[in-house]
C-alpha cells in the first residue's frame, strides 16, 4: 500500500529534527564564545599568550659567552620555601603571609612588568630530577608561583636549563646534584602557565 501521508509525516519529522539540531548547535556556539572558552574562535588569544611566554623566556635566558642568564641566576640562587608565591596586588608574597619573595628577582621583575600589567594570570612550576635513597632519580614538580587553577584555554610554555657543579647552586636549594661523579648537576624545566582572566 502506497501511503503518501505517512511519507510526508516522516519527512516533516526529519526536517523538524534537523531544524532543532541546527538551532541547538547555534545556541551553544553563540552562548559559549567567551574569552575563556577553548575553541577555534580564540586560537589567536592562545597564540598571543604563547608568544608572550616565549618572549619572556627568551629575554630571561639570553646570555653572552662567559655570562650567566638571568633565568639561570635565579634558579641557582633559588631556595624552596614550602609555600607558593602569589601576587598580592603589589608584590609576590608567600601564600598566607606578607613576606615578599626574596629570590627569583629577575623572573618576578619581568613578570611584574609584563604579565601583571596586562592582567594575565600565570602559574610557575619548576620540574627537576630528584635523587632517591637508591640513587635513582625521578622528576618532581614544585609550584613556585600559584595564582589559581588555569582555565581551559590556558597555554603552557616551558624552558629547560642545565645546571653544572661550577654554577655553584645554593647549598640550601631543593635542586640536588644528581651526578656527583661529573660536573653535570641537574636539568630544570621551568614551566609557565598563562591564561586570560
Amino acid at each position, binding site marked *: 500500500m502506497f501511503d*503518501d*501521508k505517512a*511519507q*510526508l509525516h516522516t*519527512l*516533516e519529522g*526529519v*526536517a523538524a529534527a*534537523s*531544524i532543532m539540531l*541546527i538551532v541547538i548547535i547555534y545556541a551553544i556556539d553563540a552562548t559559549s564564545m567567551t574569552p575563556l572558552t577553548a575553541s*577555534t574562535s580564540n*586560537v589567536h588569544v*592562545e*597564540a598571543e599568550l*604563547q608568544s608572550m611566554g*616565549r618572549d619572556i623566556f627568551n629575554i630571561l635566558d639570553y646570555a*653572552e*659567552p*662567559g655570562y650567566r642568564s638571568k633565568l639561570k641566576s635565579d634558579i641557582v640562587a633559588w631556595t624552596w620555601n614550602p609555600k607558593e608565591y602569589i601576587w598580592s596586588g603589589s608584590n609576590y608574597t608567600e601564600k598566607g603571609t606578607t613576606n615578599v619573595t626574596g629570590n627569583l628577582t629577575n623572573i618576578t621583575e619581568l613578570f611584574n612588568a609584563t604579565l601583571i600589567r596586562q592582567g594575565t594570570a600565570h602559574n610557575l612550576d619548576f*620540574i*627537576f*630530577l630528584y635523587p632517591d635513597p637508591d640513587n635513582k*632519580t*625521578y*622528576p618532581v*614538580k614544585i609550584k613556585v608561583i600559584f595564582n589559581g587553577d588555569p582555565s581551559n584555554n590556558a*597555554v*603552557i*610554555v*616551558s*624552558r*629547560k*636549563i*642545565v645546571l*653544572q657543579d*661550577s654554577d655553584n647552586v645554593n647549598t640550601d636549594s631543593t635542586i640536588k646534584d*644528581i*651526578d656527583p*661523579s*661529573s*660536573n*653535570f648537576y*641537574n*636539568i630544570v*624545566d621551568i614551566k609557565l602557565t598563562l591564561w586570560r582572566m
Partner: protein
Amino acid sequence: MGLIEDHDAQFMLLAGFLIGIGLVITTVMLNSIMFEGNMAIESVTENSKYDMVNLMQITTDEIRSAYRNATEKGGTVPNTTKNFTKQVNNFSATLPKIYSMYGGGARISYENWTNKGFANFTENGMPGGKDNWTLVEGVNASSVTVFNVSINLTGSIFKIEARNSADSFVWSIEFNNSNYNVTNVTNASNYTIGTFISGSQYNLTSHPFDFNYLSSPVSIHIINGKNAFGKYKIQGLANNRNFTRERDYVLNTSVAISTTKVKANISMPVSVPW
C-alpha cells in the same frame, strides 16, 4: 469547497527544504574541516619547534661546559675525552626523564675530539662556512689581555684585520706559507715580516704584533677563513663588557626529539669551548 490535497507539491517543498538544510550542514562541516586541515602544526599550541630549539640550546651548553671542564686543567687527550664523555653521557641519560613528563622523548649523539682536526677559521668552523666574517665588534684594544691564534694554512693567504669605528682598516696580520706580515696604519713604520711556522701559537698582544696599542674601539675580522684551520682565543673588553671568543674544535652533534605530532632529528655543529 474543500482543500485540494496535492501531495506531490508537498513532497517537492519538503525535499527542497531538506536539501537546503543539507547544504547548510555540509558547508559548516567543510568550513570546519578546511580550518583544521590548514592549521600549521606549529601555529597554535604545538610546542615542538620551540622545544627543538631549547633542546639544541641545552645540548650545546652542556657539550661546551663538559669540554671546558674536561680541558681546563690540561691532561692527555684520552683523559680529557674520558671526562668529557662521562659528563655528556650522564646528561644524555637524564634528558629523557625530563621529556617524558610531556609524553615525548629526546636523545642526543655526539663525538669527542680524538683524532679530530681543529676547526676552520670560517664563521661556523666548518669547511663550507662563511669565508669573511666579523669575530667581535667594539673592542677596546688596550683591554685585550689574551689574543692567541694557532694557524695551519690550507690555502695561500689567511688574514686577521682590525677596523676602526669608521670601518677603516687600522691593523692586520697576514699569513702565507712562508711569512707573516703585520701592518699597522697608525704607525706607518710598523711593518713586520717574520717567518710563519705552521701550528705555532702566536700571541698577538705581544711585540711585534702589538695588537693592543691600537686606538679603540676596533672590530676584528677574519679574511679568507677557508684557507686556514686552528685555534683562537681572545679576551678583553668590548663595549665596556668583558667578552671571550674562543674556538678549538667543532664537534658534530645531533639531537632527536619526538612528540605525539612531530619526530625530528637535527644535526648541528657545536663550537667548543665557546
